[in-house]
């Protein structure tokens, strides 16, 4: 693996094109939270691209920054969260805008949210107002973003409810969320988020709170809708099973850092980073016979007492003394499109 003088240039080349053919390009994103106890670097220099129609998974354990990454893209961070560095370039019509440079409440972001980039959440009840019908809320979204009549919007809403497999769209459109069961609410939320045919759907743990048979329905729905409408999806989850079932590429995060990134086949079959390997050996498998599991030692450190150097070195079975705790390891390409941030694979040259 070659090390050029500028690791960023290397990255742009490695991720097959940069902003030109990608829908969304995130570069060196740093989102920090400020509180009385100190500064939490929730996202600490994350970069990735997503092309039109692609499904990208972002996986990691609690506190890794996967949800904050998605909130940064839509600029819906909690009050004490601030993007301090980086670029989020979105291909918007025929121009590219840096979402970080826009006003979070400004016209551009209000136009993009819901229309170009939509989001679905873990808990569908939070996506809907309980005092308006499902239909009214979908119609409202459509009419905010498109110049259509009420009747046309109603038609579109019906069509979307039908597409997500609601049992009787004509009746469901006049129902409230409390009339619906958990699985139906999830479907309604997908219908709402897709009502303006976004180019990018961000799904933040959409299957975490549901039963396994409903989860299977939801994954099938996302797969079908994606094939049908061709939007790109960012799937954020801690469940590596869901990542393996749905995504094309995956980025593994740990304490705000990207540790490994590649096609889902590369990352699952040829995991390189000790953290990725540990995650994969930690999960019990649905395979015949006795398959042992191997946990990762220790626990995720407190965000206020972040380790120096590689954030994983305190738990790493391959820790190299005098190297890993010094500096953050750079991302190195171990195979085409497969990048790892670990000194086992190089990047030590710059260390004294």
């Amino acid at each position, binding site marked *: 693996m070659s090390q050029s003088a500028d690791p960023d240039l290397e990255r742009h080349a490695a991720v097959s094109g940069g902003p030109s053919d990608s829908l969304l390009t995130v570069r060196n994103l740093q989102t920090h939270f400020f509180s009385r106890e100190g500064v939490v670097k929730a996202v600490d220099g994350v970069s990735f691209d997503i092309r039109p129609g692609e499904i990208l998974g972002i996986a990691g354990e609690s506190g890794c920054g996967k949800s904050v990454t998605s909130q940064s893209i839509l600029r819906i961070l909690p009050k004490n969260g601030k993007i301090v560095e980086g670029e989020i370039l979105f291909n918007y019509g025929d121009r590219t805008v840096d979402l970080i440079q826009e006003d979070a409440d400004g016209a551009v972001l209000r136009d993009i949210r819901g229309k170009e980039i939509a989001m679905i959440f873990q808990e569908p009840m939070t996506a809907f107002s309980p005092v308006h019908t499902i239909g009214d809320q979908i119609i409202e979204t459509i009419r905010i973003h498109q110049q259509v009549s009420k009747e046309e919007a109603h038609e579109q809403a019906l069509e979307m409810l039908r597409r997500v497999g609601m049992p009787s769209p004509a009746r469901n459109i006049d129902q409230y969320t409390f009339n619906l069961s958990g699985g139906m609410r999830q479907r309604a939320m997908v219908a709402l988020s897709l009502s303006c045919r976004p180019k990018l759907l961000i799904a933040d743990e959409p299957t975490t709170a549901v039963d396994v*048979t409903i989860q299977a329905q939801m994954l099938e729905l996302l797969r079908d809708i994606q094939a049908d409408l061709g939007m790109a999806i960012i799937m954020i989850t801690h469940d590596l*099973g869901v990542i*393996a079932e749905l995504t094309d590429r995956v980025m593994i995060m740990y304490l705000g850092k990207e540790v490994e990134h590649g096609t889902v086949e590369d990352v699952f079959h040829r995991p390189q980073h000790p953290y990725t390997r540990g995650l994969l050996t930690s999960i019990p498998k649905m*395979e015949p016979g006795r398959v042992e599991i191997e946990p990762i030692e220790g626990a995720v450190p407190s965000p206020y007492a972040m380790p120096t150097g590689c954030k994983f070195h305190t738990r790493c079975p391959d820790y190299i003394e005098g190297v890993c705790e010094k500096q953050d390891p750079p991302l190195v390409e171990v195979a085409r499109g497969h990048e790892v941030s670990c000194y086992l694979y190089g990047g030590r040259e710059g260390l004294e």
Partner: protein
Amino acid sequence: MTETSESGVMGDRAIISVRNLVKHFPVETGILRRQVGVVKAVDNVNFDLNEGETLALVGESGCGKTTTSHCIIQAQRPTSGQVFFRLGDDEPMDLTQMEKGELKGARRNIRMIYQDPYSSLNPRMTLLQIIGEPLAIHRMVESQEELRVRVADLLRLVRLDPSTLNRYPHAFSGGQRQRIAIARALSLSPKVVIADEAVSALDVSVQAQILNLLKELQHQLGLTYLFVAHNLAVVKYEADRVAVMYAGKIVEIGETEELYTSPRHPYTEALISAAPNPDPDTKHRARIVLAGEVADPGNLPAGCAFHPRCRYAEDRCRQEAPELVDVGGSEGQSHFSACHFAESLELTGIAGGLQSEKRGNE
């Protein structure tokens, strides 16, 4: 189910036997609290928990697995049925017939671990108080000094630093808190531990630590586990036998490997098929996606409660509720299924699922 030996009410190797367990909750309405219906949370459940084994109760939300465990420990009194508990060679005792005071002895031997170690530990108590409380209540220690020694031993048992016993739960991570909850559960040297979704709230790397710790402790202390969970992969790793519940009933029960590789109930087959597998090669396997949702235990369909979602359902299933009967596992093991067509259906388990995927790729 007929695991009971002829000699008595309990199975030969059973430490707990659940017989015809029923827990119904009335649905009341209006100021007169008129009863308008009944939620059949647990509806005639029978099983034996054998000494030294891990039996898993699995199923989706509302299937009655947690209510069943609460009825065993008498945290909720069952509507009807018996829960027999036997200590060594003593006569079995029916916990459902015992008064609160009498239950103390049994409860010393049946302890629980809960899902969320953030809400199950009192934030105002130190580890010494949390873990020591059961010892004090049951008067198992003579002095404060003895209590400290016992608690320090228990912390060592769950691989925590014994010098932390004066600290409060907030100083510990989720995995460490679950270790504290385990230490508390083990403080009275119980025979049986009921773990209700004990690893569901933990991150995967920590979940694996707790799963292995539970196994080691079982081996070391000869514990019997009732492992209530919804994650099939976790259950496969942890359990010796598995009971699958649907709408308040056990629909299938058998040895873990046998049940996963040759399920005998269509619901089990669908659960196994739906569980996401962390292997991208199985991405395009033919998955069984059940239509609809779990039956409402307040308004169960006639016949087999699973029939509206079952792809093999026939007329008989809509009319007649199937009994849980032994359909015979491999090597003479018992394998119970509550399906009219358990003998004739060719259901697919985990091995089959992977094979058919490979065929599909060619």
